[in-house]
């Protein structure tokens, strides 16, 4: 019969033997985990190894032999694939600007909601609605909204602009990025808001009040007391949102179709193009593996952050 009890937290089994011993002594916990673990291993670890394997070969749908070519794919990506470099640049620009915008807005809104107002529960949940919508819908809504002849946002802005000028939202390399950033920000600022808002709620209020009683203004107290305590939440929000932004695919594909040219072609879209339009699977696998490495590094950072500063 399985026994319960909190064991000392270990960073990992110290040796084969003690791990095996532990396994034999208490099979039940591992049985509970087994189905999930198996599914995860098959669906994630195996594909990762497969990607690595593919990336070391020349695999084209329209060519018969698939020879081993070592790191040639990687070399080509890093040194001579201008379109890949461009995808990296576009991704960094879009991620950077969107992240900044979402953190600023999310924080401002968290402060706004951190007070008393009517129908608080209902209104807060209503604000979270954009997160429940498929990014596909958000994408084509943005496309509709910014189409010059029929779009509701384009119309409003064109009315405001002087003279006859019209912004070519979907056909201008700069404004297309704006469209994507606006769409993503509309959808995911509520998430940042949620993380920061819950953190705000859990902060002890006494230091804040004490400072204000001592004569500090709201902003001084905010800057010196609240903000430092929000560091952890901010970091978590930035890292999680940043990781999600690196994957940007649905919204871009449905709004600007990665155009015009390649000005909104993110890394995910370029890889999709390589893999499922041109079927250069070896080359695409190399690109995805590079993306994977970047993500793993950032994810480790996130996990370390979450692990090191645990709130109660």
């Amino acid at each position, binding site marked *: 019969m399985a026994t319960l009890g909190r064991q000392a937290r270990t*960073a*990992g*089994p110290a040796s*084969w033997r003690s*791990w095996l011993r532990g396994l034999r002594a208490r099979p039940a916990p591992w049985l509970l985990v087994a189905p999930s673990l198996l599914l995860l*291993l098959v669906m994630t*670890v*195996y594909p990762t*190894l*497969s990607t690595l*394997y*593919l990336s070391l*070969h020349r*695999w*084209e*749908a*329209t*060519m*018969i*032999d*698939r020879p081993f070519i070592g790191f040639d794919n990687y070399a080509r990506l890093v040194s001579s694939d*201008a*379109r890949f470099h461009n995808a990296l640049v576009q991704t960094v620009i879009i991620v950077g600007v969107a992240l900044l915008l979402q953190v600023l807005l999310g924080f401002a809104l968290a402060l706004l909601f951190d007070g008393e107002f009517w129908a608080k529960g209902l209104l807060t949940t209503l604000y979270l609605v954009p997160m429940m919508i498929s990014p596909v819908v958000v994408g084509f809504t943005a496309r509709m909204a910014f*189409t*010059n*002849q029929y779009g509701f946002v384009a119309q409003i802005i064109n009315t405001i602009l002087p003279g*006859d000028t*019209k912004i*070519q939202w*979907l*056909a*201008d*390399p700069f404004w297309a990025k704006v469209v994507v950033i606006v769409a993503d920000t509309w959808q995911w600022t509520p998430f940042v808001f949620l993380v920061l808002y819950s953190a705000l709620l859990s902060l002890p209020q006494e230091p804040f009040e004490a400072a204000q009683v001592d004569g500090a203004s709201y902003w001084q107290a905010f800057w010196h007391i609240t903000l430092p305590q929000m560091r952890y939440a901010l970091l978590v929000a930035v890292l999680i949102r940043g990781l999600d932004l690196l994957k940007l695919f649905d919204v871009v594909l449905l709004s600007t*179709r990665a*155009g*015009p*040219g*390649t*000005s909104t072609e993110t890394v995910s879209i370029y890889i999709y193009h390589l893999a*499922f*339009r*041109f*079927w250069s699977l070896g080359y695409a696998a190399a690109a995805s593996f590079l993306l994977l490495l970047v993500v*793993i*590094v950032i994810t*480790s950072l996130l*996990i*370390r952050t979450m*692990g090191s500063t645990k709130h109660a």
Partner: protein
Amino acid sequence: MEAVYSRSLARSVGSLLLVLTVISCGAPPSANTPAAQPTSSTAQLQLTGKTPGERAVEGLKALNLPADTTFTVFSEDLTIKMADVNIDAFKQETGLTLRTETAPFLEHRTKIMQDAINKSGTYDLVILQTSWMGDLYNAGYLTPLTEWTSKYDPDLDDMIAPFSQVWSRYAGEVYGLPTDGDTWILYYRKDLFEDPKEQEAYKATYGAELAPPKTWDEFNQIAEFFTRPEQNLYGATEWRVKGVTYWWFFQRLASLGGTYFKEGMQPAINGPEGVQALEDLKAMNGHMSPDVLSWGYVETLKAFTEGQAAMLITWPAAGKNMVDAEQSKVVGKVGFTTVPGYLVAGQPNPKTMTVPGYSLVVNSNTKHTKEAAYLVAQWLVSPEQLKRANMNLSGNTDVLRESIFADPQMRDIFPGAAEYLDAQKANIAQGFPEPIIPGYDEYMQALEIEISRFMTGELDSAQEALDNAAAGWEQITDKYGRDKQAELYTSFMDSYQQQ
């Protein structure tokens, strides 16, 4: 970095995964070998049908297929209509079922390649862009049809050249049955051109008669003349969205005497002709709606039918579609003529981009006997079925057979239809082809990206855009093998010149 993976976990599973990896990673696909077909039931068949359709039906009947046999035809959502309109007739004539599957135009190739990779035989017949045949041949997707074209005679000679011989073949065998006579037509607003006030104003400004342009200079002049934003009228409208703009580029390039490749598969697109063609293409944007950079076929057609453009160069399908559109304001006001050209050595050298259009191919993984699938294809391109498709005003299947070009019903189908059909034939006669070689789609996409970047101002220099594309082309050529590509390209261009 923290140990993200439990060490022993990874170890114990590693060997299992290694085994799995070795097993399922990429066995090369089988080469394109024609499978032995059971022809015993049709070997002795004496065909009496007078049309390809009748012969196809005879063949199908002789194969004694079960009554619930269903054939699946796949294409993108405009072209698939040519099969849709024939579903009932197929049932009536053969007792078997025809069904269709479709996908958006820009997903067309992806879906076909998916089917090729998965080898699942989801589609029995596919109507695809003939220029993809090289790639699909290499992917093992195609079935050679020569055996059955000899036996059942789809009457390819009735099809207008070059569709009849050049574009049904690859590597010496027939692999596809052409389904539409693709080319382009210059559509113009006859009512505007024939309006005496406009003619006077034009003569006063430019000192020449207002008539459908024969040269690109005339075209630009007329476009400038008719560009009146305050009236919401522009001189022209044309595809400019990222997608297939390269076709409009090649049209001009060819007219200047340029082509795709030089000796040894060196790209020939980034010479002075290429630069001029691309710059002129962009300059034309000045006479089009500012929104044109996000417009494709549907949007440019809509602009023309709304009366917002005086000229439009696009597919023959538009001629039918613009009559059919309920809101079309230009019914009966449209003229049809050939695409203009540049002056070369003092003479106009007009070239119309004549893409090989679409062909019906038989999926090598089809679950039916290949002969049966072939017969369905032959039936679909026989005159009766093609006529039904051609007469469908909302479809995009262009007339292909001489017999239908001459058919009185077809020539009467909308006001101006006779002129329209003649213009189509004339454009095919001055056509510039697309080569059918492996990697064709990759070459074109590499070029399209650069053209799109130049159009939207991301790149300032046409030379730079074309040089980038040429560099990409060299990489692609090396990937597929320079000599092999050169051989296929030259033999294709030669066969096109000869017919």
